């Protein structure tokens, strides 16, 4: 929500004011769609989650207690909807609250690719092809790590807000964030390592 926008009236929203609701949708839906798209990697699925999020919000607003901010509350609904969509696609996928075998007993210190891809030119790092590789790498993360990475690094939420939106402890968020980042680093090292080899042979 941008700070220059007209502030939303929680009172009006809770009383069922349609115009206030439309205003809330306009101020928040870009973020909600972005989160859904990054978690699901598919525009149609993201749009379904977007619609379901606001339908749920519309129904639940009268009982919204304001213990978290409106935005955090919406994020939470959207992430739960997105995880349900992931589970529908892949029945064995896990919810963010459940213990995740991907996390148990996993050590961060697996063998790591050591490729210094920082020296590639920006144009190469941010080319359309590289961007596709970046997106694909996110989709390769297990959902339990992906949601944390999306909220913290793509949406730019603080650790505290990420924890609140996902219903996790801050320590849990930090652990998952580190694992997500290390996995992405590993995948990008392999990808950009290939590009570096091409450069050498050129």
């Amino acid at each position, binding site marked *: 929500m941008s700070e220059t926008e007209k502030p939303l009236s929680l009172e009006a929203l809770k009383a069922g004011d349609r115009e206030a609701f439309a205003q809330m949708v306009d101020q928040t839906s*870009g973020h909600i*769609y972005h989160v859904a798209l990054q978690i699901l990697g598919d525009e149609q699925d993201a749009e379904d989650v977007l*619609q379901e999020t606001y339908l749920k919000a519309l129904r639940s607003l009268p009982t919204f207690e304001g213990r978290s901010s409106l935005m955090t509350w919406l994020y939470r609904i959207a992430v739960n909807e997105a995880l349900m969509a992931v589970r529908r696609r892949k029945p064995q996928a896990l919810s963010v609250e459940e213990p995740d075998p991907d996390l148990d007993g996993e050590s*961060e210190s697996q*063998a*790591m*690719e050591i490729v210094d891809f*920082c020296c590639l030119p920006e144009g190469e790092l941010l080319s359309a092809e590289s961007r596709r590789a*970046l997106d694909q790498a996110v989709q390769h993360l297990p959902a339990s790590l992906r949601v944390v990475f999306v909220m913290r690094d793509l949406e730019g939420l603080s650790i505290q807000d990420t924890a609140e939106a996902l219903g996790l402890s801050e320590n849990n968020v930090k652990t998952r964030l580190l694992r997500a980042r290390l996995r992405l*680093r590993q995948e990008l090292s392999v990808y950009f390592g290939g590009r570096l080899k091409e450069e050498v042979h050129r």
Partner: protein
Amino acid sequence: MSQHIHDPQCEKLLGSLSDYIDGELQAELCSLIERHLQQCDNCRIVVNTLRKTVELYRETSEPSDLPGSVRERLFLKLDLDEYLKKV
């Protein structure tokens, strides 16, 4: 391309790396990491590429406005069509 198997010293530092690159680590631990990075080329590359990874994602991730047709279908679904133009 080489593979880095961590020795115990590197492994101890690994758990703090996210906090380190976010600048949220206590000064004491920071200087411990920095001392280690001066001696360990592989860890230095891991830290630099980890930081670069996060930077690349942050740079390419601009939350944008809803595509017009997506907004329109959302407003219709929510029975808010009368506000499609107004808000």
